[in-house]
């Protein structure tokens, strides 16, 4: 009996320790980024583009990367939404009764979700060669759009499925077409759509491997779709490799900025989702 009790206590202790390690790793990461990034943080960092060449130049900030990231993540999310909303509606409204087919489609998006961003990057690069587009803002947006479509479709599909069947039936029985019903459903899931947008934006702004080949890099803020653009993750990645301490510091500061942006986005989407489900029940 004592042995059994001891075993129970031992494993319970292990579990507590494991839980501390797993949830503590979050604080460890954020703590490290803050510790290194805060000393280099100043107003110039977010209001100026780098001076004197990004690899060696000591002045300026990373405004080019911030704006580039916003353009790429924003553009990709908008393009992705235009494609994903119809897809999510189609799976849920028009494929009723064809369970096998809709499950296969869902499976396909699960699989697409699992494909690493480097493969999307490589594929985006192939597309760019095929269509003769140079590494540019446009190329980056295309590659990231491919990356976020599965995220958007999966999230939208999930929230549409929480809409009670009665709502749909009521709309349909009033004589509205399936498309009109879809509009009713879309209104019902609006907070869910915001969550999907946030999730997609958060993923898009943080991804490197997909923009590595496709967006190029530039010290300037892009003024057209065909100019190369910098992104925050790329700026972090490149600047960390610099031998100049100030440039490395700029990398740490960029990491801090990106972490804060992503954390705010994640927290917002969690809150939205929580409110959405609370309203449901």
């Amino acid at each position, binding site marked *: 009996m004592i042995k059994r009790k001891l075993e*129970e206590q031992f494993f319970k202790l292990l579990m507590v320790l494991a839980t501390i390690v797993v*949830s503590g790793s979050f604080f460890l990461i954020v703590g490290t980024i803050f510790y290194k990034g805060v000393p280099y943080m100043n107003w110039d960092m977010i209001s100026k583009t780098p001076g004197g060449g990004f690899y060696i130049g000591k002045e300026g900030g990373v405004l080019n990367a911030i704006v580039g990231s916003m353009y790429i993540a924003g553009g990709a999310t908008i393009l992705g939404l235009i494609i994903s909303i119809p897809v999510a509606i189609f799976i849920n409204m028009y494929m009723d009764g064809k369970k096998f087919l809709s499950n296969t489609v869902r499976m396909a998006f699960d699989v697409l979700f699992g494909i*690493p961003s480097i493969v999307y990057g490589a594929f985006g690069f192939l597309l760019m060669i095929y269509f003769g587009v140079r590494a540019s803002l446009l190329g980056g947006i295309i590659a990231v759009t491919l990356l976020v479509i599965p995220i958007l479709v999966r999230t939208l599909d999930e929230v549409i499925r929480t809409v009670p069947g009665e709502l749909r039936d009521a709309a349909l029985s009033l004589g509205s077409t399936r498309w009109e019903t879809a509009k009713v459903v879309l209104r019902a899931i609006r907070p869910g759509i915001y969550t999907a947008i946030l999730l997609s934006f958060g993923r898009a702004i943080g991804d490197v491997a997909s923009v590595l080949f496709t967006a190029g890099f530039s010290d300037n803020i892009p003024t057209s779709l065909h100019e190369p653009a910098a992104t925050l*993750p790329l700026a972090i*990645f490149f600047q960390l490799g610099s031998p100049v301490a100030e440039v490395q510091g700029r990398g740490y500061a960029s990491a801090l900025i990106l972490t804060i942006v992503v954390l705010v986005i994640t927290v917002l989407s969690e809150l939205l989702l929580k409110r959405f489900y609370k309203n449901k029940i």
Partner: protein
Amino acid sequence: MLLFTVASVSLVFIIGIGLYYKSIPILNKLSWGQLLGSSVWKPFKGLFGFFPYIMGTLWVTGIAIVIALPLCILTSLYIVEYAPSRLRRFLMPFVNLLSGIPPVIFGVWGVLFIIPLIQTYIAPHFVEYSTGYSVLAGGIVLAVMIFPLIVSIVNEVLRTMPQELKDASLALGATKWETIKKVILRKALPGIIAATVLAISRAFGETIAVLMVCGNNAVVPHSVFDTGYPLPALIANNYGDMMSIPLYDSALMFAALLLFIIILLFNIISRVILTRLERRMAG
């Protein structure tokens, strides 16, 4: 709508075909066996052996899984079976936040924290000298990256375990841990396997974080303190030169194809297991 759906679903095939099409030149020149089994990587001479890269990927992924799996299963068990609901509500958001952190931040953390840790505290006990850049560092960083994935899936699986099952075991006089060990874990095994397979495929494709901490040396690692050069890092590091050397682009696209095929298979396997489970629980 039909058009968009068909187009985005067929993306799976289009990516596969596109990558395969670009790999044809190298597949015509070298056989699959040569490509996968050879360790000679001399792009200028037209020799492309992927063996060191494949081994690098396997080492890093293996280390990550060995670290992450026990930790995550224990954490999930604690969160679902033991923790009071208030603590659970407090803990889960941090796991979710972790999943939102971009790979490059994990990479920075690896460089700033894990590398010095290995260099000054861990490696000296085992080997003469290590810079810290090693497959171990890659494995640790990857392990932290796949924490949220495994924890969330295993949580989900554990929560679907029927209460009667636990009650029956407890009523027979088993302690809580005995119930977990002999009843719950056994019943949850398919779900845990699915989570593991999914985590492996995620770890396989992770690029930037691993690239930043692995040392990127094209040799087959023999210990955890050796440097490694995983496949995704190879693709990411060399895209710049690939247009100037013949067959190089084809070789890199072949690497991407390889990743794509492996990850596709793993994903399908785990999704099939998970949907089966879901259906059994529902029915």
